[in-house]
């Protein structure tokens, strides 16, 4: 009898630490690129470090190929991480598969659209910041040609190109944006070559949907301007970097962490806007005149208050036809599946 009681006691004692660790969730991240990319992955890792500063136990696995992500995810779940953030579109189905196998682990997938009992997805309305940096480009260009280095032709990127172009043309209706696809998220040498191609063909400002600072460097070398993406890229070319559209993922990760810790988490699709601070602009370069900065900040305030909406009809498609009817607001679903260019974009969407 005593023996049995002892066994129960010991078992209970062994259980206690487990309860304690359930109260303090451990958080894991998988990244598609290296944390040192200075862009997309770097921005997520700044969010992770924000959690670390709060005293949360975190880990990450970087440069995980989308095809190998299931194995990595299963491994992390087995190692007892309570929340796993998967930060690339291509991780969507692998995340869902692994989520079904580990019902006690919470999975959060960035930039996709699938949910499950223990899987949510999240993104931030970066297109709002893209519109604002587009305004900067529209006012700063002299050649009225702005280059965009595209990564992969998926709705997210098309939406960003469109929002940027709408921003450019809201202040400079003569200007056009020229897109070059490099079919890669991260290839500094090729991004640099693409920036050169765009500038050889008359662009005097380049922006990117890829992850490295190569375009900013190339612009700095040629005495032209650039707009960074995902993270503040000023360091790589202070005299070229006008501003950047950036993520502040720490705000969102803290929110999810607290929900899980308090047991209030539910699967959902979050799409946080500029009003939450999850997306923002990097500080302006000193060559951006005060009046330009003021105009952009005024527009930002309008977006934050809801007075201005980036995608609101009438918006014309690339060929001049009506893409969004006058007064219409496309639903989030429409925005998430956007696969056409707006008027002012030069180039084709690869099929």
């Amino acid at each position, binding site marked *: 009898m005593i023996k049995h009681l002892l066994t129960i006691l010991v078992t209970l004692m062994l259980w206690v630490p487990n309860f304690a660790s359930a109260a303090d969730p451990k958080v894991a991240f998988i990244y598609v690129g290296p944390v040192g990319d200075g862009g997309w992955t770097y921005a997520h890792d700044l969010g992770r470090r924000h959690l670390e500063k709060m005293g949360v136990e975190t880990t990450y696995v970087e440069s995980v190929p989308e095809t190998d992500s299931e194995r990595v995810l299963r491994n992390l779940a087995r190692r007892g991480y309570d929340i796993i953030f998967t930060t690339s579109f291509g991780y969507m189905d692998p995340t869902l598969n692994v989520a079904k196998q580990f019902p006690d682990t919470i999975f959060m997938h960035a930039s996709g659209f699938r949910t499950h009992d223990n899987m949510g997805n999240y993104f931030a309305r970066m297109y709002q910041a893209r519109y604002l940096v587009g305004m900067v480009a529209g006012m700063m260009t002299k050649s009225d040609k702005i280059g965009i280095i595209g990564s992969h032709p998926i709705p997210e990127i098309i939406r960003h190109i469109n929002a940027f172009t709408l921003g450019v043309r809201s202040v400079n209706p003569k200007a056009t944006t020229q897109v070059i696809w490099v079919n890669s998220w991260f290839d500094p*040498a090729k991004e640099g070559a693409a920036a050169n191609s765009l500038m050889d063909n008359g662009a005097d400002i380049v922006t990117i949907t890829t992850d*490295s600072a190569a375009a900013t460097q190339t612009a700095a070398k040629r005495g032209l301007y650039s707009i960074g993406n995902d993270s503040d890229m000023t360091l*790589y070319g202070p005299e070229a970097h006008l501003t950047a559209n950036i993520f502040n993922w720490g705000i969102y990760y803290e929110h999810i962490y607290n929900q899980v810790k308090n047991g209030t988490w539910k699967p959902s699709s979050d799409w946080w806007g500029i009003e939450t601070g999850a997306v923002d602009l990097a500080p302006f370069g000193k060559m951006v005149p005060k009046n330009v900065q003021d105009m952009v900040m005024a527009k930002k305030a309008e977006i934050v208050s809801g007075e201005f909406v980036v995608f609101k009809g009438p918006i014309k498609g690339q060929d001049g036809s009506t893409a969004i009817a006058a007064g219409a607001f496309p639903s989030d679903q429409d925005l998430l599946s956007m696969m056409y260019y707006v008027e002012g974009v030069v180039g084709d969407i690869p099929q």
Partner: protein
Amino acid sequence: MTTPEILTIILTTAVTMGTPLLFATLGGVLSERAGVIHLGMEGIMLVSALVTFVVDLQTGSKVLALIGAMMAAGALSGLHGFVCISLRGNQIASGLALALFGTGLSGLFGDALIGSTVTSLDRIPIPGLELIPILGSAFFNQDWMVYLSYVLVAGLWFMLFHTNWGLQIRSVGEAPIVCDALGLSVAKIRFLCVIFGGMLIGLGGAYFPMVLTSFWVDDLTAGRGWIAVALVIFAFWHPGKALWGAYLFGAAIAFQLQAQVMGLKIPSYILEMFPYLLTIVVLTVVTVRNRRAGQTFMPAALGLPFFRGDKH
């Protein structure tokens, strides 16, 4: 924009994008001619890129940076040589391990460098030659590392096919047992080729911070070390053909970018596939043709560890 101008832009980009591939391919050719497969190129390129960046940042000297890169690349390749030649380990496994090790190493020590930048090499036009229409400005208005690559192509070709050293190297790659019987040190020749080959691969890594991306990011070669592995075969272990192979890959990127700017309706994916497709086609055609003629281009002892005398 006129056609000659467009061609010049494409060719110029082809040369700058092709040059790191060319250096690495030459290194692979030298190593493999002596019979040692070198799959570790990606890792060696990343480590030598890192060393170039650090030395340049600390000293401001491009020459010192290049020497540092070559020493680091030579040391890592020496490790490969030790495993493959001294220990007679599996060359493929050792090469793959080196590729992964180098990638990790550069990431680990590169973290502290994120955000710093160096200056890149200026273009130095060669008087006279740069005036040749179209080709002049693409090939003779480049940085000095490009000119160094021309010299290395010619030098390596001459050394391999027109000197006694070259004959020894190629013999060691074809028939090490015969060389051994003739009194040549197979191990010594292979070691030298692996180390010097590694140094050439290191030049390919150094080209990134020197010219292409004058800031540090992890993984900045973005897989070009693996393309170079394929290019060694594509070039049939010949320095001259390595030049065309490397520029072909560079030109595919250049054309892909330029076609988009010009609004040509060619899907960029097709252009991206093109050099790989060509690699497969050329390899198939040439291999089939040569098999009929009873010839092979691959060094006969490539990948085989050498066991002396009757020990095996």
